[in-house]
């Protein structure tokens, strides 16, 4: 079973066009070249679609690293955003 982090990492690799091995928990808009606001939206949409969750606007703002994204996904799998 692949972990949530690994799945988010794979999604980010597709969205940003960066090999999964080069994406770590600390990867952020500062370290990933293609991570602009449009790609941020694409990342959110791909995560929502893949995990079947809805992220709250606050979640989307807090999603500043790949590690944070994986943590938020786990949180929303437990308690859906209202």
């Amino acid at each position, binding site marked *: 079973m692949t972990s949530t982090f690994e799945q988010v990492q*794979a*999604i980010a690799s*597709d*969205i940003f*066009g960066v090999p*999964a091995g080069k994406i770590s928990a600390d990867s952020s808009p500062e370290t990933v070249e293609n991570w602009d606001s*449009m790609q941020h*939206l*694409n990342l*959110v*949409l*791909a995560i*929502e*679609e*893949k995990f*079947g969750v*809805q992220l*709250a*606007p606050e979640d*989307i703002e807090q999603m500043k690293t790949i590690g944070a994204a994986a943590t938020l996904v786990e949180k929303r799998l437990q308690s859906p955003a209202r």
Partner: protein
Amino acid sequence: MPAEHSPANLRAEIDRLIAEGAYDPAARRLAELWRRDPGSAVASFVTTRVDQFRHQLQLAKFKLAILRSFTVEPIVPLLRADAFAYGIDLEVHVGDFSTYVQDIVDANSSLYRFAPDAVILAVRTEEAAPDLARDFADLAPDAAQQASDRVTRSFEQSISGFRQHSQAALIVHSLGRPGHPSLGVVDSQSEGGQSGLVRKINADLRRFAAGERGVYVLDYDALVSRYGSQRWHDERKWLMARLPIAADHLLHMAREWMRFLVPLTGRTAKALVVDLDNTLWGGVIGEDGMTGIKVGPEYPGAAYQALHRALLDLSRRGILLAICSKNNLDDAMEALEKHPGMLVRPRHFAALRINWTDKAQNLREIARELNISVDALAFLDDNSFERAQVRSILPEVTVIDLPQNPLEYAVAVRDCPVFERLALSAEDQRRTSMYAEQRQRAGAEQNFQSKEDFFRYLEQEAELEAVTELTRARVAQLTQKTNQFNLTTRRYTEQQIAEMAARRDWHVFSIRVKDRFGDHGLVGVAIAHDEGEQCEVETFLLSCRVIGRTVETALLAHIAKSAAERGCKRLVGWFLPTKKNAPARDFYEQHGFQRQENNGSGSLWALDLNNSPLRSPDWIKLGVHDGGKN
């Protein structure tokens, strides 16, 4: 799943193939990845890779502009990836938010500079008709009516304005109705309510679009309700990013657009070839027998009946159906002909291959029999091994991935964009039955000892008619496209046909044929003109569907008889050989004509009308409407 096919390894393999310049295998792997996991992440992967080598591939290039009132950017990669899987290299231009009115009226706008092949106008009710959508409760009834008329006029102006500057196809989203009308249940008690007025705008839009060339309406409400309005919409994303559609449904929006783009690029299928066991019925006929297979109005057989209905709908659109099944012919035919649960019968299928030959070979033969190319075939089979084999041997065939659950089969077929048509002709709607009738004729012919017995059994009826305004277009079309049974292969336009028909000494006939199996329609043309005591056959042709059934003799006999009645003594005609008209070579000789001369381009034949044995066969019932001239 074998290790080398895990998604991560598949991605690595694709990048390796691209680096090696192995573009075709790379494209096939990309399509496989997309089929397996269509969504936003894979769409990004696929489109960035395709952009590295799309010019090296044989793809249909297509330029699409999207004019919109909401965020569509995240849908674009999904659309481009799906288009790629159907062999389309799609370039997309997205207009600015809600500037579509200016974009359309300004001949120098970025829209027209992009030179699109098609344009989508995707505007929501909230932006197209803000007063109707948001402030309806404030509107007096006549003000609401005026607001709705204003929206209709604005659509009409946009469409006509667009046509002044561009010949591209235009796809217009109809307006969505409110999920919660402002007056609650009262709203649906009159046509003047919020929903009623939106419905009226949509009806007017449809009527206006139908009167314009190449303008099509996308039924946005039908799309949203297919997936459920509550799930489709995402208010948070609308407020945050002006994206009104939930993440799960962006692909569905893209695929609805594909239903228009696939027919616009000509990537459609002309025939669907279906398997039998566990596809048209549940179970295996050779093992479970007539009483064991599942097909009927109850669960689980109802799933297969739903698929039958989807197939019948395709057939009414002019898509041919065919069967390719590994089975004993007798077992399968018994079920097809006699099982009470079957809604599709042998007559619905234009070709049958029920044998133990491999499916790729059968598909090639079916394409040949139906006289269409292999890339015009789609293939439906529950067996993933058969699908994979067809994909690898005949990559040009559209292979439909059937879901595991038979209850989802019908929707899988209905969702496939290769079966979409943007308009239907009368001939489209009868095409499958014409092919099936042809097969029944061929089958019946084998049961008769003599040709004459078969001809009597056919009960052919021929209607001979002088060309009229109603038949002129079809007559001209036949002169332009008939190659095989055509004695002179002279091509005429509709205008030329009209001019000939208007002259007193020229005679343009058409012939319609039907028989006990069905109606062939207007299938033959003869043109003759008198010169003194001689009548010359200018043109004599028949569609290959009816040749060899003595209709040609009836048509020739009629020309001879009417010429004799006008006082002609001789009937003459040229045979001008081409690469394709060998079937007509011996026609005059077989009908008692004498060869007069041979020049470099053909041979001239003549028949003495005073002394001719030429008669219409008595097994053809002949009706003549000569318009009083002949």
